[in-house]
């Protein structure tokens, strides 16, 4: 019995993986993600300079062999800062998405499973959060809590939670009254087991897709917040704050603004491609 179950899961996973690999765009996205991961983990090894090393005598040097992306207004190597920036972006992106998913799943599960008053209250709360534009909400939360990575993760995470709540709630609503749930309850399964072992695995697919795309949005939000001045403060190299600091030099030193921007763009592009490919691969309608 156990063997069959494992085999079924493995072959399902295999099928999804093969479908994913057939999609060239998704593969491209995966490659970008792996490069990003590699850069963040091995930043200390890859980056030729320390991201905070200032050299006031060599400010605003164009791209060259010694400085691939040039130097910024304090003589720091832009290439190294972009690589370290990958680490920050990934940390904030992943953490905020995990936080959002965690909050969203719990709220959605409670809301969908217990229904009635609980459902109403939670869904109205989600509506309120959704009624405020995402960026403004993040800005308000960031202004209240202050700067710093932790507060940034909170600000972005809280704003994204409603999306996950809705997915989980919809999934639970559609499965709640099915017979296998009744069967589980009759053999003594409690609510917790039912929610987490039986229902959630079914909405795993849309959640994963949402999370992948969520990382992209989180990175964009981080950059946006840092650009305004809320979020990661100098000298930590974050792509958005590098853009913000460099925007007044755009006429004389185009490279200060171009490379961090390209980094953001390629990362988000890759994440989106991967997320879309994942969605297609996990689409149950394509199972045949």
């Amino acid at each position, binding site marked *: 019995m156990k063997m069959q179950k494992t085999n079924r899961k493995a072959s399902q996973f295999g099928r999804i993986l093969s479908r994913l690999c057939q999609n060239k765009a998704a593969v491209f996205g995966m490659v970008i993600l792996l490069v990003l991961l590699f850069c963040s983990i091995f930043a200390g090894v890859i980056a030729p300079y320390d991201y905070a090393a200032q050299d*006031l005598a060599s400010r605003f040097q164009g791209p060259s062999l010694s400085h691939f992306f040039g130097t910024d207004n304090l003589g720091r190597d832009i290439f190294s800062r972009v690589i370290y920036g990958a680490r920050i972006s990934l940390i904030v992106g992943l953490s905020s998405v995990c936080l959002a998913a965690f909050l969203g799943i719990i709220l959605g599960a409670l809301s969908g499973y217990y229904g009635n008053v609980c459902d109403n209250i939670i869904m109205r709360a989600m509506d309120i959060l959704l009624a405020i534009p995402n960026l403004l909400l993040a800005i308000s939360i960031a202004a209240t809590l202050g700067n710093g990575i932790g507060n940034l993760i909170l600000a972005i995470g809280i704003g994204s939670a409603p999306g996950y709540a809705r997915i989980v709630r919809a999934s639970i609503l559609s499965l709640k009254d099915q017979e296998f749930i009744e069967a589980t309850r009759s053999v003594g399964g409690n609510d917790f087991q039912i929610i987490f072992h039986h229902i959630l695995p079914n909405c795993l697919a849309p959640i994963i897709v949402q999370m992948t795309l969520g990382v992209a949005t989180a990175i964009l939000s981080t950059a946006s917040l840092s650009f305004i001045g809320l979020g990661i403060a100098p000298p930590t190299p974050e792509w958005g704050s590098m853009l913000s600091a460099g925007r007044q*030099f755009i006429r004389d030193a185009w490279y200060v603004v171009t490379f961090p921007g390209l980094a953001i763009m390629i990362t988000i592009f890759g994440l989106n491609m991967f997320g879309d490919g994942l969605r297609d691969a996990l689409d149950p309608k394509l199972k045949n």
Partner: protein
Amino acid sequence: MKKTVKLAALTLAAVLTLTACGTTGGGSSAGASSAGGSSANAASADTLRVVLNSEPSDLDPHKNTRLTAWAVQEEIFDKLVTKDEEGNIQPDLATSWTQIDDHTWQFKLRDDVTFHDGSKLTAADVVFSFQRACSAAGSKTFFVQFDPDNMKAVDDYTVNVATKQPFAAVLNYLASARGAILCKSAVESMGDEAYGRAPIGSGPYKVESWSTGNSIILTRNDNYWGDKPACSKIEFRFITEAANRAIELETGGADIVYSLATNDADRLESTEGVQVVSGPAYQFVYVSLNMSDKTLQNEKLREALVTAIDIPSLVSAVYGPNTKVADSYMSSNVAMHASMPAKTYDPAKAKELLAEAGYPNGLNLSIKLAEDSNASAMAEIVQGMWAEIGVTASIESMEQATYLEQANAGQVQVAIATTNAVSGDPENALMIWRSTAVNAIQACDPKIDEYLDAGAAEFDATKREAIYKEAQQYLWDKDYCVPVCFPNVVYGISDKVEGFQCHPGSTPDLAKVVLAQ
């Protein structure tokens, strides 16, 4: 098919309606339609187009503390006295003045001045303006030394201006942008809110329209008592992006641009059709070391911190090579400035001093600043230089509102700060070092208060100068801050502009500008 067409038509109609009503309704609040703004570029070659770095919240001289507002107010209002290029006090609305006693100055006013609404300017308006300045939120701090209860209109054209203590800086203060004279009847009949949008003054220009978010248009006052300005209109536009301001100037979209970024100024100097005009200012940039902080009360430590900074490199990197390195705690353009010997840069000596101060293994400090690109760059450089001698500094950049709150509460250990003595008077420049001042410095040295009190009350110019020289020497030796530089005011003007003069307080007089064809 019909349904789709219907649907598409409906949506298109909705979108077009929104766009259309946006066009007619948008961009006007006090008269000028959006066509007014666009016509400026094609308008009479007689309109001076000026670009500011932000929009004033209102034009009431007593209600705001922003430089951009004063730049506009400079054209709308007159003051009792004014300063010429050499910094000497000249008559403006007042023809003559005498000091009656220690606390009171008597001014004789011109009798031929009318406000923009036709009413005559009398001593009652002067009294009203100063009394209002003493109680209004935005101007109260500046006018703290003035005594509203003893301001008197002796007759229609004679007025007594009173101060609480003997105050030598009176004329300098009244000559600053803060000394504007308002029209009493207009303020009372229009109410504060409306007055702030379309103020009535007696200056060379009056407010024609204010299109929120777009522009403020001033038109020439043909009943002006003084020399009539050459340009019939001035259009002020607001562009917050520094790079965009420079672009506007280069593409011919503006005639004068206030507040250019350093790198833009460097590039524009060698650009055709455009000039960069810079002049001395009253600003002083510094890194303050909280005087009430236990750690920083150690004099040797402060000396070490100052010796560890290569100030000329710092200034050159952030403000450019043409900016003057600070040689005192107040700008060289402020009256009674005394030049102090430059601080030496010696990291090895700094390390020794640090050890002598009791920190052979270094220490941790916290730098806080209100977000600003120059301040950020400075903080990072200072952090880097202190790291060389073993001092680890953390940087926290926050919004202005949060920073002000923390600074005033004494929670900022090291701050990147700027002070601007708009009146050009040493009392104005050094008042941040008084123990009663509320800011990041948290001054608590009674000797400074002694010096400043003596200087403020001393009417003899020579004696006053000596007092301030001693005061500056004292401050300089005490290393209460890392003195950085005196930034200039920098303007970009097109070649068509003639007669433009820099003003150290950042409020140039545009009435003298002529647009060549």
